[in-house]
């Protein structure tokens, strides 16, 4: 057991945690920003897939990371726009529409992958680019902290910018105020002249925007290729992370960090020779348990509050 504990306490463990939480926190911000406006986007799984695929293909064909980034983000925002259009304009049930979009993403990416590369599994036959990793000059020389925080992919560093941007948008801009107003009470918001539909559309576009970075990171940072259904439920774990964090910036960050920790942990105890199927089920099982505990707590608190009120 000793070497295991040692390896968990090693800076490498935190490094791994940051690495695996990157493709969870981006979509979790996406879920949170849509949930705050009262229209929860559960299509992040599909948004990430489409962005991951677009990024790989565009980088392979243009040789430009910038084009790949722009195209990937546009693809994600586009998916958000489609969801918004169907939900807000055509009055589709947002959950079913999102399920349909997730299916669409899975199907269209495999379909196009096959058309373009004659492979249904991965894009490894084409040469795509990856986003670079950086050592941070002074930080990298500090013991313990250096190996934890330095040497990450640029998109992992951007994660911190994203969470601050999320905070800023929600609390410091008129749009954020409106998003929160619409989410808390759409009728009241409408009565003071806020266009509820428009605000929800913006929140879904933002949701696609944040989610697309998660997808780009998966295929152009975490690994260097696209493979079918490579999101593997991260878009759904993101829903859990966001709801654990009450859809607020710090909470969402901590929620995603929790799943990152569990994920990294299950990788680090691999030497124990526990069947890999068990290890792989840990993040999903944890989600179930954590969500259950969270809602039990919440409902107990509500009951207590009701009792207080009755007195």
């Amino acid at each position, binding site marked *: 057991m000793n070497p295991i504990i040692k390896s968990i306490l090693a800076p490498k463990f935190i490094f791994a945690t940051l690495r695996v939480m990157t493709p969870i926190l981006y979509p979790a911000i996406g879920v949170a920003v849509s949930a705050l406006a009262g229209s929860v986007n*559960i299509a992040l799984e599909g948004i990430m897939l489409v962005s991951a695929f677009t990024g790989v293909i565009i980088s392979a064909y243009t040789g430009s990371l910038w084009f790949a980034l722009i195209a990937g983000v546009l693809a994600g925002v586009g998916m958000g726009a489609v969801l918004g259009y169907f939900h807000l304009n055509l009055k589709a049930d947002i959950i079913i529409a999102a399920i349909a979009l997730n299916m669409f993403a899975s199907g269209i990416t495999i*379909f196009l992958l096959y058309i373009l590369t004659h492979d249904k599994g991965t894009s490894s036959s084409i040469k795509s680019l990856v986003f670079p990793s950086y050592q941070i000059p002074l930080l990298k020389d500090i013991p313990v902290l250096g190996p934890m925080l330095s040497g990450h992919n640029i998109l992992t560093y951007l994660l911190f910018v994203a969470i601050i941007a999320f905070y800023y948008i929600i609390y410091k801009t008129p749009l954020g105020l409106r998003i929160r107003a619409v989410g808390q009470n759409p009728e009241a918001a409408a009565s003071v002249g806020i266009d509820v539909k428009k605000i929800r559309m913006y929140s879904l576009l933002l949701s696609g925007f944040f989610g697309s970075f998660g997808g780009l990171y998966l295929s152009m940072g975490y690994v260097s290729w696209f493979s079918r259904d490579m999101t593997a439920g991260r878009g759904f774990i993101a829903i859990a992370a966001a709801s654990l964090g009450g859809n607020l910036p710090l909470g969402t960050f901590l929620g995603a960090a929790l799943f990152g920790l569990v994920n990294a942990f299950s990788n680090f105890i691999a030497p124990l020779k526990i069947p890999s199927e068990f290890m792989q089920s840990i993040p999903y099982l944890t989600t179930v348990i954590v969500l259950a505990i969270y809602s039990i707590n919440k409902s107990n608190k509500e009951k207590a509050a009701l009792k207080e009120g009755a007195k």
Partner: protein
Amino acid sequence: MEKFIIKYFNLIRIIIAILIGVVISVVVIYIITKNPSLSFRSFFLGPFLSKGRFGDWIELSSPIILCGLAIAIPFQAEQFNIGAEGALFIGAAVGTAFAVSTHMPAVLHITTVLLVAGLTGAIWGFIPGILKAKWKTDELVISLMMNYVAYFLGLYLINYHFRDKAAGFLVSYKLPQTAWLAQFIPGTRIHLGVIIAFVFAILTYYFLYHTTTGYEIRTTGTNKNFARFGGINVFMVIVLSQVIGGFLAGIGGMTEVMGLSRRFNWQMSPGYGWDGVVVAIIGQNNPLFIILAALFLSYLRIGGQILNLLSDIPSEMVIVIQSLIILLITAEAFLQRFKNRITIREAKMKEVQNESDN
């Protein structure tokens, strides 16, 4: 004519959505393939061109029907449990484990194996159900997570404990013959599981529309508060609808193993649970329509497979088409303007008639 359109508006909408899907696939095939006529023939007529393929089409509809029912019952109670995929996988894995480790006479063996698979699936429905009913945990996320848990645990069970090492690839031991569902039409793979699926569809229809519990499920779905004031045990309905759903999905997975491969050979989740979501939505959660929707979807699937074999178009085209059909069907406002126009015309005509009557 106007009256007809208004009365059957929903049905017409669904048919138009399907037609749009079909038209899009025609266009896509036309653009991509070098030999359109062969591709059209294999996609649209493929399932009819040989007895074996026709059989595959009918056979494929059976797990999709059962998963469609598994999704529809919770949906009727407004529970977004989409855990049919997991219930099917774990049900089939545990059912297989049970089948290969027991010896019984045929009928008894088949019944108990199906029961074990169904009950395992039911547990998978129970967990999100009880969490939702008791503590309002989001059943959507829980059931999604349970899908992954089922997948990995099922694989663990088969690969570590019931793996047939002589087979050369990752499959379970062959089921004893007493647990086989017979393929009863020579030249096809149509097996007793198909009959089981159809019977369950009819039973589910009866259950939902002709029993008190079915009524309670539907009422809870339409208006939870009304149901509660009306004395319906909403707690029970929420749990039960998901438990029955899991049960049916478990059976759907097991009949595939017992009738088709006769051993557990899934290393990837087969996706019937997601097909179940598709047919539940196309069939508007009505078991009888779900049969039709499942036949339609499996027709596209088999057509897609043949297309994939004979031309350069991947079968995933069908997934894209089905997702577009669902999007259109769930979009309430799709064609609404058209309906409004017809309603107005109908009203005007009545007015004119009334005036002339006076």
